[in-house]
């Protein structure tokens, strides 16, 4: 069951720019006029995770957003001597508890449409507060699927 909200082409091209060309670090999506998911902010390659979080919450406590981030971390497999660098894409739905039910409903029922348009995302995260959206929490989730 979905809301019928569509995804704009800009979202898909920006996503490809991150996935293939590594042009940006992250992108924030929002739902425009309750009709279409569109790009709000594009983060430069050298920006930090904190700036992503700030931009995600730029709308205030009553707003919801989606965020896509190209996350990098190092991972050392058991039995190997060198740590390897990993890059993973995650897509996050940000619906704070303080947001109006209408916003939460709109964003959560449209998340599926965005998921389907952006092919190749490794992890989907639903966040309602910072304990789920922080860098540590995200990294933990991404590492959970790595081999030890």
């Amino acid at each position, binding site marked *: *069951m979905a*809301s*019928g*909200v569509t995804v704009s082409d800009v979202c898909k091209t920006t996503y490809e720019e991150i996935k293939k060309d590594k042009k940006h670090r992250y992108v924030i999506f929002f739902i425009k006029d309750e009709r279409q998911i569109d790009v709000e902010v594009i983060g430069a390659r050298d920006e930090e995770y904190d700036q992503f979080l700030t931009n995600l919450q730029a709308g205030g406590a009553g707003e919801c957003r989606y965020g896509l981030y190209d996350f990098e971390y190092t991972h050392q497999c058991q039995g190997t001597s060198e740590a390897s660098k990993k890059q993973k894409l995650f897509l996050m*739905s940000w619906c704070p508890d303080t*947001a109006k039910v209408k916003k939460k409903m709109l964003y*959560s*029922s449209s998340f599926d449409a965005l998921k389907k348009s952006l092919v190749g995302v490794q992890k*989907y995260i639903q966040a309602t507060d910072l304990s789920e959206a922080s860098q540590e929490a995200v990294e933990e989730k991404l590492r*959970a699927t790595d081999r030890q």
Partner: protein
Amino acid sequence: MSTGMLYGGDEIGALVFDPGHHSLRVGYAQEDTPKAEIPAVVGVAPDESFKVEPEVKTEDGNVSSKPSQNKYYIDTTFLHVPRANMELHSYMKDGMIENWDMFEKILDYSYEKIIQSESQYHPVLFSESPWNQRQKREKLTEIMFEKYKVPAFFLVKNAALAAFANGRATALVIDSGATHTSAVPVLDGYVISNAVVKSPLGGDYLILRAREMLDSLKIDLTPAALISAKDVVREKDIPRCTRKKLNFQPSNSWMTYMMKRTVQDFQQTVLQVAESPYDERFVSNIPSVHYEFPSGYHQDFGNERFKLAEGLFDHAMLGAGHIAATSAGMCDVDIRPALYSSVVLTGGNSLVQGFSDRLSRDLQSRTPGSMKLKMIAANGTVERRFGAWVGGSILASIGTFQQMWMSMQEYQESGKSQIDRKCP
């Protein structure tokens, strides 16, 4: 869009119906709360006034448009009056609509008295239980299009609505209602129906237990509707009240219903779930609660408050925590972390004091170490009791949602079986 017409949105007020065992919630989409909450029982009595004075029918709640042998009484004000030979019937069974004739009476009443508008102008969104049967969904679709001539119709699983209303597309929805508590995994807005777990422990079970306890204490449970006056008595004294003089005996079903209502009020005011499994020593330190029955009898309730509510959790197989863990365990291992990290609590019975704390504690002990538990429970009474209705209200008002409706045209072209394709 195949139909070329616009439904829902701001232009035409869509209606939202959320049927449950305790009540049916009815209202306009985009509003915050339902317009009305109608008890899910219908009173039926042989129509005597019909032959004597046929004109006064509409005044007293008779909603059947054509003359019939029976008179139907719907909604609290009409139900809570003792009437000769009035039997009460419930039209719900196992979370699904069972008696369609009665249900149509309720719909007639909703359109006439609450919506006060013609059914053909309003698209209708219905919520349904996650285990609703195909034949029942088709029957409802048929009734709405054929009898009520609605321009568009949609059916959504109530668990999906509750999850969305709490900002989650993927969630484990714990819905504790009147007749049962269920754990329903929702993935991207779709219910995983083979992993739904139900338990018959809900509000009605609590009422039953409370009733047994009150009966054993020999407390008079005469409903307020039968009492004309009462005196103030001292605590635990025999009540002195005057009963209304009736020249007939109210039917058993009516008495049962009214006593259930009386006990329900007691249950909601007094009962509390202990934080940890029931322990007499700990519980005896918590202040007792004073309660006065309609008959005027009153006393303090201490340990009983917790002992009764414990029934929801102490059962090894049917406790809320257990069914939640079982349901998650039946889902694919990949989505289990996502389910545990968004457990959504809804349903009127979850408002029993201490319910969410205890459930969260219970679940915490069952959550696998590698996963994080997060429980989301709306704070407001309205959001919790009408969670699915509120979700439906918003969904039906979203502009883009209008292309999702099943339209009258589609119904005429493809028939009722189309509902399974349009609203999975």
